[in-house]
C-alpha cells in the first residue's frame, strides 16, 4: 500500500526556488491500477521519481507498505527499489548488446538470486509479459519496439515487486502495439492482482486504468475512479 501525505518537492537553483509538487496526498491500495495523468511540466515525473524511491520529497511523508521512506539513505532506497518496485520506461532502457534473458536476469543479479534459479524466474516473467519463447536468446537490439517493451515489463516483474511503475510506457510505440502493452498491464492487474501505476500525459492512455489521478502544476485537480475503463481484448501472443 502506498500512502503519501502532504508531500512537496522544491528544486533550488541558486536563489531561484521552483516548487514542483505542492502538498500532494493520496493513498493507493494493493491491486489498484492507477494512472497519474498530467501535461508536461505538471510534476508527474517528479511524483513518479518519489513513488519509485529514486528521489525523496522535500517535505511530507511517504509510507510504502507502512514503512516511512522519506528520509532513507541512497543505499536504503536502492534496497527498496530492488525489492518492491519494478520500473518500465518510455525508452525501454535495455542493455543493447545483451540477450533478452540476460536483460531480464539483471535485477536478480543485484538481489543475489543463485544463478541456477535466475533463468527459470526470467522465463516465467517473460511468459507473463507475453514474449514468444523463440526470442529469448535474441540480442535486445534485434527486437521490435513492442517486443522490447515486453522485455522491459518482464524485467520489472522478475523480482515480484509490490508496485509496477510505468513511465509513459506507450510513448515510443505505435497505437496498436501500445494497446497491446496496456492490455498486458490490465492482465497483470486483473489476473495477478499487481499494483500498477501508469504515468502518462494522454487521457486516452490513462483511461485504461481503473483510477485516474489528474495533476496540473504540482497539485492534484482530480482523483476519481474511472467508470469507463477501456478494456483491451487481451490477445497478447
Amino acid at each position: 500500500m502506498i500512502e503519501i501525505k502532504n508531500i512537496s518537492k522544491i528544486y533550488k537553483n541558486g536563489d531561484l526556488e521552483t516548487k514542483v509538487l505542492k502538498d500532494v496526498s493520496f493513498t493507493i491500495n494493493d491491486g489498484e491500477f492507477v494512472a497519474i495523468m498530467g501535461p508536461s511540466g505538471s510534476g508527474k515525473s517528479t511524483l513518479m521519481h518519489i513513488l519509485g524511491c529514486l528521489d525523496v520529497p522535500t517535505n511530507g511523508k511517504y509510507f510504502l507498505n507502512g514503512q516511512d521512506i522519506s528520509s532513507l539513505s541512497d543505499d536504503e532506497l536502492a534496497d527498496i527499489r530492488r525489492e518492491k518496485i519494478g520500473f518500465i520506461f518510455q525508452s525501454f532502457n535495455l542493455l543493447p548488446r545483451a540477450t533478452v534473458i540476460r536483460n531480464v536476469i539483471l535485477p536478480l543479479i543485484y538481489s543475489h538470486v543463485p544463478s541456477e534459479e535466475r533463468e527459470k524466474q526470467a522465463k516465467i516473467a517473460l511468459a507473463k509479459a507475453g514474449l514468444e519463447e523463440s526470442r529469448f536468446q535474441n540480442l535486445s537490439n534485434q527486437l521490435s519496439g513492442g517486443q522490447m517493451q515486453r522485455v522491459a515489463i518482464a524485467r520489472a516483474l522478475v523480482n515480484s515487486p509490490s508496485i509496477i511503475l510505468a513511465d509513459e510506457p506507450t510513448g515510443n510505440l505505435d497505437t496498436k502495439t501500445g494497446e497491446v502493452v496496456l492490455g498486458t498491464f490490465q492482465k497483470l492487474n486483473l489476473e495477478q492482482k499487481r499494483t500498477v501505476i501508469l504515468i502518462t500525459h494522454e487521457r486516452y492512455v490513462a483511461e485504461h486504468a481503473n483510477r485516474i489521478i489528474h495533476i496540473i502544476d504540482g497539485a492534484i485537480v482530480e482523483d476519481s475512479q474511472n467508470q469507463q475503463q477501456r478494456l483491451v481484448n487481451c490477445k497478447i501472443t
Partner: protein
Amino acid sequence: MIISDLLKETYSAILMNKIRSGLTVLGIVIGIGSVVAMISIGQGAQGEIQSRIESIGSNLIIIMPGFQSSGSQVRSSRGSAQTLTQDDAEAISEQVSFIEAVAPEISSRYQVTTAKGTNTNTSIVGTVSSYAQIRNLEIALGSFISDQHVKNLSKVAVLGPTTSNDLFGEGSNPVGQKIRINKIDFTIIGITESKGGTGPNSQDDMILIPLSTDQKFLTGSDYVNTISIQAQDPDSMTEVQNQVTSLLLIRHDIPISGTADFSVMNQADIVETASSVTNTFTILLAAIAGISLVVGGIGIMNMMLTTVTERTREIGLRKAIGAKNKDISFQFLAEATMLTFIGGVIGVILGWLVSLLITKFSGIATSVSISSVLLAFGVSAVIGIIFGYYPARRAALFNPIEALRYE
C-alpha cells in the same frame, strides 16, 4: 554482486569495444613489459657482479699491508708496505677461532718463457695448498700445489687456463712441460678450471707456485702481499675480522689508537658495496620504465571516463533496478583492473621475451626473477585501482534520475 557475475559483466563490457580496450591494454603492456625488461637487465648485472665476487672464494677475509709509513711523511700506495709475514699467517691460523683455512700469498709480475720460444707477462703467485680451497679454484688437469711442494721448495707451477693458452696454444695439455720464470725452470703440474673474467687481475691469467719457492728464488724475502682467510660460515666473519685485527695490532706493536699498517677486507662488504651500486642502477632503469606505466594508467583512466559517460543511461537503469553505489563502483573498478591485469600478463610475457632477446643478441646478462614478475602484477593491479577509482566513483555518484534522462 558476486564475483562470477562481476567477471561476466566485466568480460562483456571489455569485449564491447575491442579496439579501444586493446589500445588501452597496449599502454599497460608496454609499461609493464619495459619495467620487467629493465629490472631483468639490472638484476642480471647484479647477479653477474655478485657471482664474480663470490668466485674469488666464499666467506673470504683478505688482509693486505697498509701504508709504508715508517720514517718519512710521504706515503706510498696502499698494499705496498712490507709488513705482513708468513709468521703472521701462521699466528692467525693458530690463534684465531672459527677459521677454516689461511693462505698467505705473494704476487708479482714476471716475463715467462717456454722452450718453444713463446712468452708472456703474467702474475706469479706464491702460495700454499689451502689457496685452492679458499679461492674456490678447481683443477682441470693435473694437480694443485701440495704441502710437500711447499716444504721441499719444489720448482713446480700451476697455470691458469688463459696463461696456458697463451704459452702452449688452445686445447693443449702442457702438464709435465717446463716454463722458465726469471731464469729458473718450473715444471707444470696442473691447470686450473676457467673462472671467467678478463683484465690484469683475472684469475685465469696467473701462475701459481709454492710460497717457499717464490720467497727463496724470486722475491728473496719473508714478506707476503696478502693473507686470505676463509671463515667457517658467514655468521662468524665479523668475529674473525675483529680477532685478526687485534692479533695483528699486537704482533705489529701498534697501540689500539694507532694507524694499523694493514687493512682487513671482508668479502661481504665488497658484495654489499657492489650490490648497492647495481641496486641503484636497477631502480633507475625501473623508474624510467615506470613512467611509461603511469602513462598507460592515464590511458586507462581516459578510457574509463569515456566508458562511464557512454553508459550513463545504463548506470541510471542499474541504479533504478536496485544497484547500490558500491555495486556500480565495483563494476567499473573491476573493468579497469581487468584491463590492467590483462596488460600485466601480456606485459610480463613481453618483458621476458625482450630480456631473452637482449641476452641473445647483445650478450648482456638478464634475469627475470619471480619477485619482479610479482611486482609487475602488483603494480598493474594497483594502477588499475588507482586510475579506475576516479571514473568508478564518478559513475557510482550519478543521480539515477539524471542518468536515466541522459541523451
